[in-house]
């Protein structure tokens, strides 16, 4: 290679020393060595933890000593000097290869950028985005209009046919129930997936993809970071949390981008507890859209719990908040084709994930009902439902909610359309379901990323907590005789 960065003389001397060691046998310590010795030397000088671990103890001492003598000869930290030399090299090349004859052209983006990042203008923008994007488009159009149409179509065109055909084809009523009637695979499982969840998720993903590609989300993170810091929350955790508004499972994977274990834990916990994912948002918006007071209470409660939980865990967990650093991509006009492809891919992914689960759920419920286990569980949950001030018809929904929040929410939707719930009851069940873990997939991801112990701890906190919040909420609503 023709180029070589020259570092400060003491650093260069240290590199040469390590290269000599390398040739005398250190190289053998590393199983994988596809980088040059010079590169390894630089990494070791900066105490790369992975490579450090692979060195035997006596060599670690030699290296420690070398680093100490090198550091003694220069005033600033070694890694800073190294970074500085590289930066200068990069800047020098940029200057000779890049020309900017007309710097004014960037400015329109710059202005919008400032508006979105400054809390004074940023919050109104966020409110507008939430109102038009989430409330109007996802809530009213997706969860209202579209769900109504597809549901009506199912109830009028498909379910009667399915019921009729199964009754003709299968002589045993108990086997008929597997496919048709109240809890059948087709009449319940597939109906939930296609008529309730699909339109909600489709509209939400469309909106989310638009926001994502425009470059708004990182700016939202940046603006929220300033707010979160004020109440003691670690700023960087904002990134996966904003993504969690799309899908908590995916966001749990993204917590990996956080630097410290502590931050990863906080983010994972907040995602599991208080961040509703696309499917929940939509269904809950659809549920509460006709009752603005309940909707506002729901939002206020969830935000409150989110902030409080974040605040407590921040105080409770040892360690300090890490520095927040986010790469800000430019604001772009999203390309419609990209947005559509992305929405399509996510929808397809989600649908194929959900459909078999919903079908399984119907099958399991069928087995449970046949064997009496279902009724036994329901009768166990009924007192809980009653304690929350909910009618006993919601017991099965809470049971589903344990497995998937969206399945439970869809069930709630079903009940509400039958006019069986009051505003208070809707609010309580919406809050409880939001606080539950969203789905088994997320639980799997928590186990994978954070380990079984953490997952068990989180779950054994989250479920009782969700129910307790529901209980207190019901008690409060009764006490002040509020009906929403």
């Amino acid at each position, binding site marked *: 290679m023709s*180029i070589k960065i020259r570092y400060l003389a003491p650093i260069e001397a240290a590199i040469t020393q390590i290269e000599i060691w390398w040739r005398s046998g250190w190289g053998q310590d590393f*199983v994988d060595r596809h980088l040059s010795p010079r590169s390894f030397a630089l990494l070791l000088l900066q105490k790369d933890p992975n490579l450090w671990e692979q060195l035997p103890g006596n060599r670690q001492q030699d290296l420690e000593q070398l680093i100490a003598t090198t550091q003694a000869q220069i005033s600033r930290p070694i890694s800073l000097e190294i970074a500085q030399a590289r930066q200068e090299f990069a800047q020098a090349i940029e200057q000779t290869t890049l020309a900017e*004859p007309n710097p004014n052209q960037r400015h329109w983006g710059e202005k919008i950028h400032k508006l979105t990042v400054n809390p004074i203008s940023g919050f109104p923008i966020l409110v507008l985005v939430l109102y038009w994007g989430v409330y109007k488009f996802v809530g009213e159009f997706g969860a209202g209009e579209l769900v109504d149409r597809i549901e009506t179509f199912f109830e009028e065109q498909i379910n009667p046919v399915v019921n009729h055909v199964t009754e003709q084809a299968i002589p045993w009523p108990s086997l008929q129930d597997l496919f048709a009637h109240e809890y059948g695979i087709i009449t319940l499982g597939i109906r939930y997936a296609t008529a309730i969840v699909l339109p909600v998720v489709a509209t939400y993903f469309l909106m989310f993809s638009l926001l994502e590609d425009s470059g708004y989300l*990182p700016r939202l993170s940046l603006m929220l970071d300033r707010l979160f810091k004020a109440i003691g929350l670690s700023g960087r955790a904002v990134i996966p949390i904003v993504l969690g508004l799309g899908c908590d499972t995916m966001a749990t994977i993204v917590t990996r981008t*956080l630097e410290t274990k502590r931050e990863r834990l906080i983010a994972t916990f907040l995602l599991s507890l208080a961040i509703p994912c696309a499917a929940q948002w939509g269904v809950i918006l659809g549920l509460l859209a006709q009752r603005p007071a309940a909707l506002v209470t729901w939002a206020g409660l969830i935000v409150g719990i989110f902030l409080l939980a974040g605040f407590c865990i921040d105080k409770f967990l040892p360690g300090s908040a890490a520095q927040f650093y986010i790469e800000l991509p430019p604001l772009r006009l999203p390309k419609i084709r990209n947005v559509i492809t992305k929405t399509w891919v996510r929808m397809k992914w989600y649908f194929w994930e959900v459909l078999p689960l919903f079908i399984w759920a119907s099958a399991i419920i069928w087995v449970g009902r046949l064997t009496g286990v279902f009724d036994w569980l329901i009768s166990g949950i009924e007192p809980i439902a009653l304690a929350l001030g909910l009618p006993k018809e919601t017991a099965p929904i809470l049971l589903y909610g344990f497995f998937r929040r969206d399945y439970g929410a869809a069930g709630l939707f079903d009940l509400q359309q039958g006019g069986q719930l009051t505003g208070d009851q809707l609010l309580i069940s919406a809050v409880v379901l939001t606080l539950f873990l969203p789905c088994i997939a997320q639980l799997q991801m928590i186990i994978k990323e954070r380990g079984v112990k953490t997952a068990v701890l989180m779950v054994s906190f989250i479920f009782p907590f969700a129910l307790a919040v529901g209980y207190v909420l019901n008690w409060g609503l009764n006490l002040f005789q509020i009906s929403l």
Partner: protein
Amino acid sequence: MDCHQCHQNHGSCGSKRSLRWLPFSENLTRPPIEPGGPQIALVGMPNVGKSVLFHALTDTYVTVSNYPGTTVEVTRGAVTLGDRAVSVIDTPGMYSLLPISEEERVARDLLISESFGAIVHVLDAKNLGRMLSLTAQLLEAELPVIVAVNMMDEAQRWGLTIDREALVAKLGVPVVLMAAARNRGVDQLREALADRLASTSVPAVAAVG
């Protein structure tokens, strides 16, 4: 779309189930990849368009977004160069060879542990100065680097021009100017990759005493 089978037979897909957010990473590609053949890696800082480029090269859809840190796992696909199929790996973004977060480590460890016929360093043309320090580190490591200056369309809209020849002269490696999202420069990159692989048919090995 063989991933759909994953959704139906849960048991057999094992670890792949957990990667479901990157849905079609296991796409079948037409010409078979030569076993033991060279590999290509796409590396670069977050949000420079590695996944878009991966998509353009391999026709495999990876979730792409204008949000840093969306790729947290390695995705493999195949690119057709002339009549041969070569394995390509999309990596999570990294700022430097010295990893800070876990996702950066994924990319770095890959570079250390596997051998590559070519490493495409994807840069954002609008932030050349900030990105070239990673190029410097890759060159320092004597990796077979090809520099892909991406997002040229946006740079042009900003009124920026980039002197490709000067970059080639300074860095001593092939440089391709491109806008992967608009499919511009992708063919030139293929050519550069084919040339590179032809010249390094023996995988580059770091000189070890």
